[in-house]
């Protein structure tokens, strides 16, 4: 069997278009890799072998007939938060272990229409609540760079599957860092777009004012190809933005000469791991050598991001997750005595500990007499955090810093201490609160573990972020590194 896993999505697309490989052969080779490696890594919750091969044979017909799109025949994986018609959509929870979605999420539908092949559904923290993938009902994912460590979360399955090349690319979602932090910890490229750019329809809701879907792939170029398919207005999502979508690949090769890069002093404080600091500094030096200008800036309210997030996100999740009632779909407890017993036991048994913690925090924050002190206060601070970015973007083009304060940590290390887990998203959360786009790019290693450089852009500046990331990737090969044992 020929191997293709060292190829990027863009390179695979070119091979398919040239007829050098069929989608069937390609899909089969990735399914074989999943079989070979995933018993250890646990990156997939569900693999849909038969359906993938069926899709591949249709893609091959389209490729032969001519006029096929760039993603036709390319295998990808979807985070198990996206509804997929006829395929189990668990969201990493016992609550939805038996849920076969009756419809497709808009993102899934768009990839289907583009001719991409779905290999399966990737593992994730339960309802996307977590930063290590350890809250999944289906067990933790292991980081292919060091299987004693976590891949990050909540899109940990997608990140680890791309890092070990069990899929060329995958979808993810980011509410407080859930694309960028696992991308950083697994050494891949992950983009969180501007809030409202990608439809949330059929993406199981966690915190609706923060949730955003995005691509997780090997390179910025691959992310651009995926975003071309993912982005766009959807009338089925009430916060979807009516915005003309550019071709995100068009500006990849633009010059970054004279680019003004803002370095927030708050992102380089004493909380940052020294090894990560060294890698980020080297990446910034590379940008300087490529003609960019480094400018010191400040985001004075960014230190309040984590406290604000742990009001807004739990409050919204407590409302969103009230739909899981044991009546219409999902888990129902055995022999309920009455309706109250049905609700409380179905939810108590169906949700894991972290989800229950957040529902309770949110319920408390929204309960009578506390709304002003918590939710209202948090939304006010959110305005200040967002104004900090607005002021910064008056003087710089992009902002750079680490995506995560440390590299991948050991499985179990933070599982019993929610607060220390929450603080691992300290550099990513403000971007969600402000609704801005951000990307994590592989920038090197510390202690043999990958480090991600985070690049934050102004609203709708995805093209610029991808251009800035792509230029770096033309000068470095961190994004082409594959962990030992998966080469």
């Amino acid at each position: 069997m020929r191997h293709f896993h060292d190829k990027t999505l863009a390179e695979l697309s070119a091979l398919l278009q040239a007829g050098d490989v069929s989608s069937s052969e390609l899909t089969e080779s990735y399914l074989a890799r999943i079989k070979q490696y995933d018993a250890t890594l646990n990156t997939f919750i569900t693999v849909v072998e038969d359906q993938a091969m069926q899709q591949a044979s249709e893609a091959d017909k389209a490729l032969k007939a001519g006029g096929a799109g760039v993603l036709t025949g390319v295998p990808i994986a979807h985070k198990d938060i996206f509804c997929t018609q006829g395929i189990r959509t668990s969201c990493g929870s016992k609550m939805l272990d038996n849920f076969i979605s009756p419809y497709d999420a808009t993102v899934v539908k768009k990839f289907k229409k583009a001719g991409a092949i779905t290999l399966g559904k990737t593992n994730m923290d339960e309802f996307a609540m977590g930063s290590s993938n350890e809250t999944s009902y289906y067990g933790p994912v292991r980081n292919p760079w060091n299987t004693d460590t976590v891949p990050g979360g909540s899109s940990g399955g997608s990140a680890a599957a791309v890092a070990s090349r069990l899929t060329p690319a995958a979808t993810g979602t980011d509410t407080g860092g859930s694309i960028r932090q696992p991308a950083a910890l697994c050494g891949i490229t992950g983009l969180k777009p501007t809030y409202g750019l990608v439809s949330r329809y059929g993406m199981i809701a966690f915190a609706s004012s923060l949730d955003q879907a995005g691509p997780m792939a090997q390179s910025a170029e691959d992310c651009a190809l995926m975003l071309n398919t993912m982005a766009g207005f959807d009338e089925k999502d009430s916060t979807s933005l009516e915005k003309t979508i550019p071709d995100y690949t068009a500006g990849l090769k633009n010059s970054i000469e004279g680019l003004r890069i803002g370095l927030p002093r708050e992102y380089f404080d004493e909380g940052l791991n020294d090894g990560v600091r060294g890698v980020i500094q080297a990446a910034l030096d590379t940008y300087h050598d490529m003609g960019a200008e480094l400018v010191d800036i400040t985001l004075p309210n960014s230190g309040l991001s984590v406290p604000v997030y742990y009001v807004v996100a739990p409050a919204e999740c407590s409302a969103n997750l009230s739909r899981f009632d044991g009546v219409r779909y999902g888990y129902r407890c055995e022999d309920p005595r009455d309706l109250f017993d049905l609700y409380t036991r179905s939810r108590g048994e169906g949700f894991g500990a972290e989800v229950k913690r957040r529902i309770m925090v949110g319920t408390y924050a929204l309960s009578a007499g506390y709304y002003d002190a918590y939710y209202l206060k948090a939304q006010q601070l959110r305005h200040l955090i967002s104004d900090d970015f607005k002021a910064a973007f008056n003087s710089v083009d992009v902002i750079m810093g680490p995506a995560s304060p440390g590299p991948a940590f050991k499985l179990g290390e933070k599982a019993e201490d929610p607060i220390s887990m929450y603080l691992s998203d300290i550099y990513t959360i403000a971007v969600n609160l402000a609704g801005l786009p951000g990307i994590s790019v592989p920038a090197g290693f510390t202690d043999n573990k990958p480090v991600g450089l985070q690049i934050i852009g102004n609203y709708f500046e995805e093209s610029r972020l991808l251009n800035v990331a792509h230029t770096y990737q033309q000068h470095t090969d961190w994004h082409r590194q594959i962990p030992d044992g998966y080469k």
Partner: protein
Amino acid sequence: MSLDTDDIKSIAQLARLKIDEADVPGYATNLSNILDLVEQMNSVDTEGVIPMSHPLDVVQRLREDEVTETNQRDAFQKVAPATQDGLYLVPRVIE
């Protein structure tokens, strides 16, 4: 802010979550720690700051009030725990 075990029981009741008696003290500690973290918000005076409801100050989009979806009751009820004659079954509510 410190929550005791009675607080946890009443929050769990509001949230319709059955919590095992043995787990209540653990939740009390965790939730108290989270609320301590959240207390940091009070270090900044937000008097007069407008709460942010949407990052891009977008207004809620409206559409014509007309039927746009077809009835898919059978497909949707296929994933329900218990149905009968097109209705969802729950324990008896009225004696």
